[in-house]
C-alpha cells in the first residue's frame, strides 16, 4: 500500500517575485483511501495537485512530498527492491518519473492533442511507464553494464509490433476495451484524437479512463466533477470507485461541491484556505460545508470571517 506524504509544503509561482500560493500544506493519502480536498477559489487546491505532479510553473520553497511504496506496489518489479528504493522524494523527480512511480494527475482542463489517437497515446504512455519503472528500480550495478540502446527506434510512432517487454497492439486493445466497458465509454473513443473535440464530460471520463489504464497508486483528480451533467457524473463516479475498489488506488479528489461526494463517499475531507489545510474531518465535514459555506472555517482559523 503506497502512502503519499506531503509535509509543510510551500510553493510559489516559478518566476521572480512569484506569488506565494502554498503556505505549509500537510496531507497524507494512502492507496485505497478517498480524500476530498475542498475550499474556496484561489485557496491553492489546483496548485497542490500540480505541484504533486511536478508542474514546472511552480517552485517549491519549503517542505517535502514523499511517496512510500510497499511490496504490493512493487509486485510488477522483477528484482528485490531494496529499502532505499521504497521511499521517494518526489520533488527530485521529473513529472514522468513521478507518473512511473504511481502518481496520476487528472486535469481540470486536459490538453487536446490533435493527430494522436487515444489508442496510440495510451499504449505509448503505458509502455513509457513500464520502461521508466524498470529504470527507476533497476539495480545500479547492472546499469553500468547496459548498452546504450536508445539510439535506434524502439518504438515507432506508428503502431508497429511491440518490442520486448512492451505491451503489444492486440493485447493493449483488449485491455482498453475492458476498461472502456467499465466506464460505459463508446468504442469509437479509441480512434478519436486525444481530447480533441471532446465535450467537457467526455474529457473528464477520459481522465478516469487513463487512470484505469495506468493503474496509479495515488490519483489526484482536479475538479473532475466540474461541467458534468448528472448522468455523466454518475459514470465518472462509478469509475473513481472502481479505481479504488479494483486497483486499490488512493484518490485525492479536489472539488467545490458536495454533489460528487454523494456518489464517491470520502474517507477524509480537508478544507484548504489560503494555501493551508485549515480543517480536516470525515464525510460529515463536506455536508457541513455545503450547508454553511467556508466562512466558519476561516473564522475558526483566523478568528475572523
Amino acid at each position, binding site marked *: 500500500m503506497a502512502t503519499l506524504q506531503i509535509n509543510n509544503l510551500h510553493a510559489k509561482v516559478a518566476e521572480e517575485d512569484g506569488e506565494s500560493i502554498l503556505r505549509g500544506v500537510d496531507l497524507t493519502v494512502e492507496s485505497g483511501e478517498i480524500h476530498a480536498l475542498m475550499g474556496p477559489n484561489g485557496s491553492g487546491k489546483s496548485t497542490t495537485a500540480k505541484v504533486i505532479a511536478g508542474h514546472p*510553473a511552480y517552485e517549491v520553497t519549503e517542505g517535502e512530498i514523499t511517496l512510500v511504496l510497499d511490496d504490493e506496489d512493487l509486485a510488477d518489479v522483477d528484482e528485490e527492491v531494496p529499502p532505499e528504493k521504497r521511499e521517494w522524494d518526489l520533488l527530485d523527480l*521529473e*513529472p*514522468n518519473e513521478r507518473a512511473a512511480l504511481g502518481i496520476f494527475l487528472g486535469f481540470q482542463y486536459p490538453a487536446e492533442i*490533435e493527430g*494522436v489517437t487515444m489508442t496510440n497515446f495510451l499504449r505509448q504512455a503505458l509502455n*513509457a511507464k513500464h520502461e521508466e519503472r524498470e529504470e527507476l528500480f533497476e539495480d545500479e550495478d547492472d546499469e553500468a553494464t547496459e548498452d546504450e540502446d536508445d539510439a535506434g*527506434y524502439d518504438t*515507432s510512432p506508428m503502431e508497429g509490433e511491440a518490442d520486448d517487454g512492451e505491451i503489444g497492439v492486440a493485447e493493449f486493445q483488449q485491455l482498453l476495451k475492458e476498461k472502456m466497458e467499465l466506464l460505459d465509454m463508446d468504442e469509437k473513443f479509441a480512434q478519436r484524437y486525444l481530447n480533441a473535440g471532446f465535450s467537457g464530460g467526455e474529457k473528464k471520463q477520459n481522465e478516469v479512463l487513463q487512470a484505469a489504464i495506468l493503474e496509479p497508486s495515488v490519483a489526484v483528480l482536479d475538479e473532475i466533477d466540474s461541467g458534468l451533467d448528472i448522468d455523466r457524473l454518475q459514470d465518472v463516479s462509478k469509475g473513481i470507485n472502481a479505481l479504488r475498489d479494483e486497483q486499490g488506488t488512493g484518490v485525492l479528489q479536489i472539488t467545490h461541491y458536495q454533489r460528487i461526494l454523494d456518489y464517491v463517499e470520502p474517507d477524509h475531507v480537508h478544507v484548504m484556505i489560503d494555501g493551508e489545510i485549515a480543517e480536516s474531518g470525515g464525510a460529515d465535514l463536506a455536508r457541513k460545508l455545503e450547508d454553511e459555506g467556508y466562512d466558519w472555517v476561516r473564522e475558526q482559523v483566523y478568528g475572523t470571517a
Partner: protein
Amino acid sequence: MSSDQDHLKETDTEARFEFKKEERSSFQADKGLTEETIRVISEDKGEPEWMLKRRLRALEQFQEMPMPTDWPGQPDLSEVDVDEIVPYIRPDVETRESVDDWTDLPDDIKDTFDKLGIPEAEKNALSGVGAQYESEVVYQNMQEQWEDKGVIFCNMDEALREHEELVREHFMTKCVPPSDNKFAALHGAIWSGGSFVYVPEDTVVEMPVQAYFRMNSEGMGQFEHTLIIAEENSEVHYIEGCSAPKYSAFNLHSGGVEVFVDDGAHVQYSTVQNWSKNTYNLNTKRALVEGDGRMEWISGSMGSKATMLYPSTVLKGRGASDNHITIAFAGEGQNIDTGAKVYHNAPETKSTIESKSVAKDGGRTNYRGLVHIADGASDSSTSVECDALMFDNESTSDTMPYMEINESAVDVAHEATVGKIGDEDVFYLQSRGLDDDDAKQMIVSGFIEPITEELPIEYAVELNRLVELEMEGSLG
C-alpha cells in the same frame, strides 16, 4: 505487419544519412557551367539535336536572369555559385543503360539503396521503382501487368530515346518553361536523369510507382527531371524520395517536375525529401490540369540548408481540382521556404492548401503561397490553411499568403495559426509517463498526421522516423 515495415523498423535510419560511398564515376563534367560543358553532356548522352538546342537556350536564359535576392524573408543564396559545382556525374555502370534486375547492380550502389530500403519497398507495395545514383538512373523496373496495359515508367534519358515525340511535345514547353525562373533555366540547361511516367487513358495504376534519388558525391549538383503524363480518366500515384550524405562543400539540387493531368484524370505526387544540411534545394514543380482532372501534391521537406519550393497547379478546365499538403521542418541553421501556387483559370475549379511547419533551435520556416482566381473562373473555391509550430523563442516562422481574386462569384477561405509548442500540452503528456522528448515528439507527430495519413504506410513510418531524428538533433 508486412515484411517491408519490419525492414524499415530494423534499419538504423540514422546510419542511412551518415554513410557515403567512395565516389565512382566513369565520366564527370568539369566544374562550372559553360556552353562547352553542356555540349559535352548532351553528346555523352547521345541526345537529339533539338534537346541540345533547348539546353543551350535555357543556358542563355539562366545567364540573363538575376538571382532572386529581395523576397521578404528569403533564404540566403549567396553561397550558391554555379561555377563551383560539378553539374554532371555519370556513375560507372557498365551497360550505360539502367538495369532491371537488382542483382545486376554494382555492389556498392546496391548497398546504398539497400540501406535506404528501396528493394524491399518495391517487392511489396509498388507498381514500379527507379533509383537514381548521382546524375543517372541506375535501376528501373516496372511490373509486367502495367507494362501490358501500356503504362510507361522509365528514366528520362531512355524516354528521350524511346518516346521522343512525347518528350519533345511536353518537355519544358507548356508546363515549366526555362524562362519560369533562374533555377528552372539552370535545370533546363543541365538536367540529367529523372523519371518519365505515361499512363494511357482509362488506365488506373493501383499501386504507387516510386523513384529514389541519391546524391553521393561532394560538391555536385543533381538536376533530375520528372515528367508525368496522365491521359483521360487515368490514375497514378508517383512517389519520390531523396537524400544526400553530409559533406563540407555545398550541394545543389535543382529538380524539375512537370505533370500533365488530362480530362478526368487523377495524379498524386508524393515526396519525402531529406537532404543533408548543406544542400540547397531549389526546385520547380508544376501541374497542368484539364477539366474534372485532379492533382494532389503531398510533400515532406526535411533537411537541406535552404529550400525554396512552391509546387504549383494550373487549373485549366472546368471542374478541375487541386489539393496541396506540405510539411516543413527547420532546425538550426536551416531556412525552409515552401508553399504552394494555384491558378484558377476555369469555372468551378477547386483548391485546398494545407501547410504545416515546425521550427526549432533557431530554424526558420516560411509559408509563401499564391492563389490566383482569374476573371471568369466563377463558382470556384479555395481554402488555405497554414499552421506553424515553434519550439523556442529563437525560431522563426512567417506566413506570406497572396491571394489575387479577380472574380466575385467565388468562395475564398484562409486561416493561419502560429503557435509555440504548448508547455501545458507537454506537461499533460509527461504526467502520463512520457519524458520531455517523447512528449514533444508525440505532439509533432500529431501535428503532421494529416500528411502521414495520406502516404503509403512505409513512407508514413519513414517520415515519422525522420521527425524523430530531427527532434533528437541526430541528423547531420
